[in-house]
């Protein structure tokens, strides 16, 4: 067996940090299990095809959901039917029937189905396409697993290996057939599984050089892997990233399980592939769901490296509740990880760039809940947004498998706490002097009934101090003051934070127009809120009587307030567009009369021409000159036709382009014609 693999307990922490966005990946949980029951729903107790049945049953088996009793009868019927008469079924059907049989165990035991074996062996011998090799070789592997007492082997395993290997390409991809030059990464996955099957069925060891070339091919394939910013890796093809990546992972698992020397794959990419599938969430499509779960199952249990995922049940820390920070490290299916230690390397605050609040803090392990936790935070840990950087160290011990994790896992954390509000006061000031006319202290924890009055020459000032639990100045995300008139007209003002306090000064002299010159009682409401603030507030402070001057005629009126506050969201009134009124056309008969009047002189002109007689005596008789003359007249006719087209549909630029070409032509032929005529008349004169 694989002596090297069993003895291996290497610590693999990679130097290559996966830089990029911080994000949290959660292992497969019960939400996946309940979603699987909705996605894989059989129609009338059975599935449309054996392939779909296999995908559904395999997924449910991996997730530990027992639906076999519900599905076995109808599906088993199909399986037994195909296995009973394999000659009338395709290789694909036989393969999937055997796959379903492996899960449901419809037909098992010592009797080797000889006709199935002979069909598959003939399939291997006659196969030309990759898929034929795949179904027949994998079918034989399934028969060997399911029926004891069989001795199935491929007599000419090396020839089969070479035939399949011949379909490979230098970039690591595989072709589906030797005729078709199109290659794909999905086919590469199928090829790896098939070759793994050939190796396991071979009666003797396959030539090591062939296996080495296959390993080189795998390395080349990994060069074409694609990456997202959050550190996930995937393979993408026309079949889609989920199907393609799952196919490759299945192939790698089969290959690593079958051959004697270890398969070395880059650890960061394996973790990246695991994160890709976990990041998909819960797919709605049955095929994607199967591919996701199957690929994760291959990653959970394989011979190259098993990825471990760090996840947090909650990314919000409450400083008031003083809860510890909890971290879970598990496999992709949430299974227990081996002994390891988790360290919080850094806690980077989003505000202060680069400086870390916490450095190299080891987390304690709670065996009961299998979580790592940080009991207490340092005294300088304030509210706000942080990025926690975790490092995992797998302890050196006798692990059967090789576990792999990310070098550093970055997680966004939000720390919340109670913000202290002090020195809250509201005052009315005289504009010119700045002296305080009336001032009231506020207690914002309860609704107040402060009563103030001001005129348009005065100012209203609201000031307060917001401090974090550690005494730093706090700048809230939202701080608004709302003034609401008796007629329901509202105005909202922002309270700005600068220096040590938050303050808002409303100068009514400049605001009269904004307030629509409405005098009267205004309700004052203060809103302060932030994601880090546990005691966000919305409090009614009281009211203020404003005395504003009369509205001048041209000033804007206040908008009509709807009685129902949600009516602002109803559809607006339809806009009726006013188009230019088309001009009045004259009567049709009148136009036709004028048409007749205009055409008459033209007819008269033609009659006059015939009376005069058209003089074509000077028309040249020699061939060359006659041709030029004809082309000249034709050219003029073409120009006139162009003008008609210009009027009907062409634009000026097209017309000018065509005219320039015709003009050059006309110039040429016209010159020839007229020079011929000139030469002819000169001859006559001299004669």
């Amino acid at each position, binding site marked *: 067996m694989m002596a090297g693999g069993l003895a291996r307990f290497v610590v693999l922490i990679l130097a290559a940090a996966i830089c990029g966005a911080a994000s949290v990946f959660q292992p497969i949980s019960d939400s996946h299990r309940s979603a699987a029951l909705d996605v894989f729903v059989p129609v009338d107790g059975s599935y449309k095809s054996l392939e779909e049945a296999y995908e559904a049953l395999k997924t449910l088996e991996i997730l530990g959901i027992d639906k076999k009793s519900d599905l076995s009868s109808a599906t088993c019927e199909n399986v037994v039917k195909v296995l009973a008469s394999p000659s009338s079924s395709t290789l694909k059907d036989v393969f999937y029937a055997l796959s379903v049989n492996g899960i449901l165990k419809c037909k098992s035991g010592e009797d080797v189905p000889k006709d199935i074996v002979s069909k598959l062996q003939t399939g291997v011998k006659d196969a030309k396409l990759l898929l034929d090799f795949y179904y027949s070789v994998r079918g034989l592997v399934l028969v060997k697993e399911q029926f004891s007492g069989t001795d199935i082997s491929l007599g000419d395993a090396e020839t089969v290996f070479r035939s399949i290997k011949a379909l490979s390409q230098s970039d690591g991809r595989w072709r589906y057939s030797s005729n078709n030059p199109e290659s794909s990464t999905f086919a590469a996955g199928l090829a790896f599984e098939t070759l793994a099957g050939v190796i396991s069925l071979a009666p003797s060891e396959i030539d090591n050089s062939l296996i080495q070339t296959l390993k080189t091919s795998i390395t080349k394939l990994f060069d074409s892997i694609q990456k997202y910013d959050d550190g996930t890796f995937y393979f993408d093809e026309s079949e889609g990233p989920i199907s393609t990546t799952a196919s490759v992972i299945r192939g790698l698992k089969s290959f690593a399980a079958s051959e004697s020397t270890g398969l070395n794959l880059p650890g960061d990419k394996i973790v990246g592939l695991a994160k890709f599938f976990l990041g998909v969430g819960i797919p709605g499509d049955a095929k994607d769901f199967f591919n996701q779960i199957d690929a994760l199952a291959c990653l959970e249990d394989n011979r190259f490296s098993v990825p471990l995922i760090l996840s947090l049940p909650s990314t919000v820390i409450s400083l008031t509740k003083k809860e510890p920070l909890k971290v879970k490290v598990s496999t992709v299916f949430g299974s227990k990880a081996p002994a390891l230690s988790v360290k919080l390397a850094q806690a980077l605050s989003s505000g202060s760039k680069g400086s870390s609040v916490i450095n190299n803090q080891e987390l304690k392990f709670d065996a009961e809940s299998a979580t790592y936790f940080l009991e207490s935070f340092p005294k300088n840990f304030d509210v706000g947004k942080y990025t926690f950087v975790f490092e995992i160290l797998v302890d050196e011990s006798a692990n059967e498998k090789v576990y792999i994790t990310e070098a550093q896992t970055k997680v966004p954390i939000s720390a919340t706490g109670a913000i202290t509000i002090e020195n809250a006061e509201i005052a009315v000031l005289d504009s010119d002097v700045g002296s305080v006319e009336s001032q009231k202290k506020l207690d914002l924890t309860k609704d107040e009934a402060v009563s103030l009055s001001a005129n348009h020459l005065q100012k209203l000032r609201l000031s307060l101090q917001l401090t974090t639990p550690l005494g730093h100045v706090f700048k809230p995300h939202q701080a608004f003051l709302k003034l609401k008139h008796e007629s329901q007209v509202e105005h909202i003002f922002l309270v700005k934070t600068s220096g040590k306090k938050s303050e808002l000064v409303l100068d009514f002299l400049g605001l009269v127009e904004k307030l629509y010159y409405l005098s009267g009682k205004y309700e004052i409401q203060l809103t302060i809120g932030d994601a880090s603030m546990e005691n966000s507030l919305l409090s009614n402070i009281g009211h203020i009587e404003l005395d504003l001057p009369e509205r001048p005629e041209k000033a804007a009126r206040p908008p009509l307030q709807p009685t129902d506050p949600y009516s602002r969201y109803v559809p607006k009134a339809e806009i009726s567009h006013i188009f230019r009124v088309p*001009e009045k*056309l004259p009567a049709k008969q009148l*136009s036709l009369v004028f048409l007749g009047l205009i055409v008459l002189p*033209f007819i008269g002109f033609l009659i006059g021409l015939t009376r005069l007689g058209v003089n074509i005596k000077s028309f040249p008789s020699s061939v060359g000159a006659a041709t030029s003359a004809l082309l000249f007249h034709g050219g003029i006719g073409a120009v006139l036709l162009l*003008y008609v087209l210009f*009027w009907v549909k062409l634009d000026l630029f097209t*017309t000018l382009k065509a005219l320039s070409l015709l003009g050059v032509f006309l110039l040429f032929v016209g010159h020839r014609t007229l020079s011929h005529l000139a030469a002819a008349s000169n001859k006559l004169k001299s004669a």
Partner: protein
Amino acid sequence: MALVGSFSFNSFLFGVLSCTGTAFLAICLWIQVNKENKKFKDLAPKRAFADFVLSNLVFHLVIMNFFDRCPSPILNVVFMSCKNVV
């Protein structure tokens, strides 16, 4: 104008101008070709004709540009007929 209104005044105007301009060019050709005119006796009639053809082509290009594109084929034959081809 009183009868028809000012519908498509552009086309009417350029129709009239087209007739006037064409007549003017024809008169110019006649002056240049007429043997009795001593002033142009050195000018070859062929040259005068070539000038006539060229100036007509340019003139009618400009006229055609200013005609309104046809909203109705029937009505616009009226304005098309204003243009006499000499």
